[in-house]
């Protein structure tokens, strides 16, 4: 590493560590009002989807305060389980002064990531530089808010680094005592993420006192495989979160978690990020859904944000007793012989064919 690059990198990392320091976040969150979340039971839990508007922040404390205000709305609305969006960390791009300046001058994120004015020169390297600060800020914020409100909080996704330097788009779930319950790496990257993201290897199920949860990330819901595996492992509530540009097109959006809860007999919470900077146009609406037929009114929607592009917190009560009754009344057939015959061999045959042809051909 050249001396200049070494100095730049070291300086950037020191600056990021300072802006992400936990003491500043804890200080900012201290001495505020914390209504306690009503405790979930085996029969019901209040849930919230946070449709969060991304705006650049200067440091972790500013980010935490924004999350505090939204989490408080959720708790005051009756939620004990709160879901923030994918890419909740985007505001933290503001921690890099050069990135902030470029974004404020109208540069797109792609341009920002390639711009020589940045001390790092490629998206993966910039994300690698930012990753420790993002992780630290999300963890401190999630832990503090969860324990102070007494709520279960999925604080959004950040960038997780492993020892080999691989990066994952990872969600963080905190318990009502503030402990990190677990994480989930996104299993299916989008085209935009392919250049930097390593897919996760497995789907985690989190057994909480009131229900089993899974938290596949955004694109993971385009694949029934993800939620079938979750359902077979007994999941009751699917936490979903996205940062998408087409989420306000109803039928396009319905291909995700709203479709998957129908196959899974589970509740689904979809929290969408809103972003209107750096060429990003992420939008909602966010919603909370149940399998059709679970409730008397036959609709799948328990709650929906009023608009796709305004920050809003929605809440709904998830009736877990009703979910159990519904499942008992709707016992489904399965066909192990069929699955054994085709899965996963059919994927491998397809893969071999595509590898040979270069692309999927249906004509």
């Amino acid at each position, binding site marked *: 590493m050249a001396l200049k690059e070494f100095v730049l990198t070291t300086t950037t990392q020191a600056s990021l560590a300072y802006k992400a320091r936990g003491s500043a976040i804890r200080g900012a969150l201290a001495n505020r009002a914390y209504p306690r979340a009503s405790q979930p039971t085996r029969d019901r839990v209040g849930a919230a989807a946070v449709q969060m508007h991304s705006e650049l922040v200067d440091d972790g404390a500013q980010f935490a305060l924004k999350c505090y205000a939204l989490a408080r709305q959720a708790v005051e609305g009756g939620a004990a389980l709160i879901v923030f969006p994918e890419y909740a960390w985007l505001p933290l791009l503001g921690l890099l002064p050069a990135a902030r300046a470029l974004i404020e001058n109208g540069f797109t994120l792609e341009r920002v990531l390639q711009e020589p004015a940045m001390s790092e020169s490629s998206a993966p390297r910039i994300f690698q530089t930012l990753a420790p600060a993002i992780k630290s800020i999300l963890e401190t914020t999630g832990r503090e808010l969860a324990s102070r409100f007494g709520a279960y909080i999925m604080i959004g996704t950040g960038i997780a680094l492993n020892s080999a330097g691989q990066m994952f788009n990872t969600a963080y779930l905190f318990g009502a005592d503030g402990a990190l319950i677990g994480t989930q790496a996104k*299993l*299916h*990257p*989008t*085209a935009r993420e392919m250049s930097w993201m390593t*897919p*996760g*290897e*497995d*789907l985690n199920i989190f057994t909480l006192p009131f229900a089993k949860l899974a938290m596949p990330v955004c*694109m993971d819901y*385009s*694949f*029934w*495989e993800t939620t*079938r*595996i979750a359902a*077979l*492992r007994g999941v009751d509530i699917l936490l979903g979160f996205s940062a998408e540009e087409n989420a306000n*097109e109803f*039928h*396009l959006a*319905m*291909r995700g978690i*709203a*479709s998957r809860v*129908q*196959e899974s007999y589970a509740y689904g919470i979809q929290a969408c990020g809103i972003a209107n900077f750096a060429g990003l146009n992420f939008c909602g609406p966010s919603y909370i859904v149940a399998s*059709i037929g679970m409730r008397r009114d*036959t*609709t*799948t929607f328990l709650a929906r944000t009023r608009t796709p592009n305004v920050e809003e917190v929605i809440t709904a009560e998830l009736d877990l007793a009703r979910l159990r009754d519904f499942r008992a009344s709707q*016992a*489904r*057939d*399965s*066909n*192990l*012989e*069929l*699955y*054994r*015959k*085709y*899965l*996963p061999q*059919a*994927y*491998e*045959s*397809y*893969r071999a*064919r*595509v590898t040979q042809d270069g*692309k*999927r*051909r*249906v*004509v």
Partner: protein
Amino acid sequence: MFHVSTIQHPLTLVASPQEFYERVHPLIERAATNGAQLVVLPNYIGLMLLGVSVRAEQKSLALGELARAGNFATVSELLCTAAPGMRDFYLQIFSTLAKRARVFLAPGTVVEMHAGRLYNTAYLFTPEGTVVGSQKQTHRTSREIAWGLSQGEELSVWDIGDARIGFVVGTDVAHPEVARILALQNANLLIHPAAYPTYHDEYFLLDLWRDVQGNQIFGVQSCAGGEFRGKSAIYAPVEMTRAHTGILAQATSADGEEIIRASLDFDALQKNLDAYSVFDFFNYGFYARAFPSTYRGRV
């Protein structure tokens, strides 16, 4: 372009094969006259022929009542007794109709006996009246289990020119494994014979629309009307449809008799996939680790 029609038709018992023929013939003929190359009919249409075996007053397909009227101990006994005759009539009539109309015909399903077991089976006929293939339903509702139906254990795809057809029979639509396995075998058109008990506007989330979007191929859904509900429809990936609904054509009512038609452009389907194929993002390692072992613990 490949022109398809789906017929939404109420299921009621008929007293004779002739009556059955007269009920379905004009509809198939009309679809063919309007240019259809493939015509699709609803699930359980073959059960209308139960009225031939059991001379009952009722027109409804309430099988419990029908079994009692025919002095059968169970619905299963009724179906086992009637299945061979129903299947014979079904095959003869639809072979004749495919030949007369000069269309590929997917005339819903018939309950049939195979190796001593009952199956709900979909058939596909050529314009010459020969059978291209048949697909046994692979999953059952609790009612179908009570009737004594068995599960098919294979999923097949058939080439008929540009279209590569796979069947998602009845409640198989609730199991996304079926459409995925067919799509992985390169099906580009799913046929869904359906007979839903209820319907409302969000039911597209439960029907073939979901499979079509998940696999980015075409789908034709034929719903039974009358005492059943559901909107017959012809689906395409959302990106290929006006207003991004994923619907090329759809019945106007959820129970009336209707013929719906649309033209399928397979070259456009390929272009759509060339631009973006969701299959490019499979996590093969994840599936290989989870399937089929995850099922074993639960079924």
